[in-house]
């Protein structure tokens, strides 16, 4: 049996029983109706799974009133005797499992009572407030209050620590970003430097290595000349190997031209429509026996009748030998 199911059954039963009560309070003497309701209550609770005996729940109103008359004195004495108040607002806690709402309702009830009590004390001029210099035993001992304080401090501290940790984490992320930015900048500067040196060398190459190399001067001249690095051109060069002016390594360039460098690898060897239609590499079988086509039949050309050099027969060779 689920707890929820039980609660639902309880609620349903409670509603029914409250209906019954209200009817009785209104003064309807129809016993049959109330009995029926009571039975319904019981069957409802029976469905919910709580195994109660099948009889009506006892609610002896008259006897209760009588008893109340017997023992009651609280309503017949001045308020100062009991200090009891009834909350005017007939609020209902809808969901008792909702801690916040429930406690708030209780708090509001108590607060209203406290304020009303203060008003009544003031009206009757009764001293009620404890003077600040009145020390007496409290409900909770000092040790207990020290513990409470410790707990409060601990909670506050843990909140602070969590805050601190969160801040540090954010700081770390930020500094990481800054660092990455810096690295990027540094890389860019380095690249630029290398490029300018390359440019300088090329210029000197063009001019046939004339004159003494004054590095600083050349560099400053280059700087002055071209502030804009040729980013786009460079990217193109990378994509088309062999044409790169920067590549001076000839074997490398040759290999790159042959095998390719960079670019898409997959499907590069797959047929396209053009390559499939290309018959340039096709040669019909040669009959003269020269060379021979590619393929498995290379070694044994079936159609060859007279090889160029044929060994003479045995008799012929013998005759020849005797000669």
């Amino acid at each position, binding site marked *: *049996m689920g707890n929820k199911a*039980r609660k639902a059954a309880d609620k349903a039963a*409670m509603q029914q029983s409250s209906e019954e009560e209200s009817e009785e309070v209104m003064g309807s003497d129809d016993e049959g109706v109330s009995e029926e309701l*009571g039975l319904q209550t019981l069957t409802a609770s029976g469905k919910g799974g*709580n195994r109660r005996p099948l009889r009506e*729940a006892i609610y*002896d*109103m008259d*006897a*209760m*009133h009588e*008893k*109340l008359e017997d*023992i*009651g004195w*609280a*309503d*017949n*004495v*001045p*308020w*100062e*005797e*009991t*200090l*009891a*108040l*009834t*909350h005017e*607002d*007939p609020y209902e*806690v809808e969901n*008792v499992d909702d801690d916040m709402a429930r*406690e708030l*309702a*209780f*708090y509001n*009830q*108590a*607060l209203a*009572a*406290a304020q*009303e009590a*203060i008003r*009544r004390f*003031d*009206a*009757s001029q009764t*001293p009620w*407030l*404890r003077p600040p210099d009145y020390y*007496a*035993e*409290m*409900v*909770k001992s000092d040790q*207990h209050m020290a*513990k*409470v304080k410790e707990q*409060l401090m601990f909670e506050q501290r843990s909140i602070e620590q969590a805050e601190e940790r969160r801040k540090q984490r954010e700081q770390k992320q930020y500094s990481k970003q800054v660092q990455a930015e810096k690295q990027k900048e540094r890389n860019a500067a380095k690249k630029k430097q290398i490029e300018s040196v390359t440019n300088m060398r090329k210029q000197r190459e063009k001019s046939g290595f004339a004159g003494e190399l004054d590095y600083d001067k050349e560099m400053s001249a280059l700087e002055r000349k071209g502030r804009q690095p040729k980013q786009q051109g460079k990217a193109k060069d990378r994509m088309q190997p062999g044409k790169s002016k920067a590549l001076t390594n000839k074997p490398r360039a040759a290999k790159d031209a042959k095998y390719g460098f960079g670019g898409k690898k997959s499907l590069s060897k797959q047929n396209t429509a053009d390559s499939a239609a290309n018959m340039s590499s096709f040669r019909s079988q040669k009959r003269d026996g020269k060379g021979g086509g590619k393929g498995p039949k290379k070694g044994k050309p079936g159609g060859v009748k007279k090889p160029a050099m044929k060994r003479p027969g045995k008799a012929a060779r013998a005759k020849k030998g005797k000669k």
Partner: protein
Amino acid sequence: MAKKRKQTDTEERSGPQPSQKEQAVEDAHAFKNKEKVLILSTRGITFRYRHLMNDMIDLIPHCKKDSKLDTKNDRNVVNEVADMKGCTSVLFFEVRKKMDLYLWMAKTPSGPSVKFLVENIHTMAELKLSGNHLKGSRPVLTFHKAFDEQPHLQLLKELLIQIYATPKRHHKCKPFCDHVLAFSVADGRVWFRNYQVVVPLDKKKVNPDSASLVEVGPRFCLNPIKVFEGSFGGRTLYENANYVSPNALRAAAKRASAQKYSDTVRQRTARKEHVASHPMPRSDLEDLFVKKDG
């Protein structure tokens, strides 16, 4: 009945005026609250329930504590004890199976008595609430509106007032008022809360609206089971139709967990029987590829 009582209520509590003051004083002389509450428990009380009992003792200055009761069946002994101690009402903590706490509130010797199941217990010690108040100061009691509306709740209210209201000139009480005991009704149960009244210290005259509350504890919730006519016995006046005993709840939970396995077993045997009683029909093509003799 409810209406009648309420009328007297409003008449009584219209707020004492200076002209009525004399009358009030006279009344006070005429009436003296001589309630005394006996607090005791059964043997086998656990630490948490004992702490709750101690909290009650701290909150009720006009109480007498007695040693643990040895018997759980003969509750008339409690009446005798109360008689010996000169008490008019009893708070009896009955612990069953070392896990369930039932609280009896009774007027002795002629009743009535109420049996509650105590739920959601949080003692003052385990709740680290920052409120605190004087030991023995008189509490302001506040009751939910529902306490005036239903007969059994009216009876409960009277009992609660007589037990928790500290007599005005009791020798153990302190003549100040710094806490509120709140009794509320929700979900068919009576909820108990204890708050400290905090007022700003700097002003001489306290504005009621500037007062605030800090909870002190303990917290608990009373689920009424039965109201009896006598003290610890007698005719039943009220019975809670929605009450399910914790034993029944535990048994149901146990049964539910046992259900799972028994369901599996039942299903398995049922399947076996079904398969046995419904054999597969013979197919025409079954021996098509079987090699025939000769």
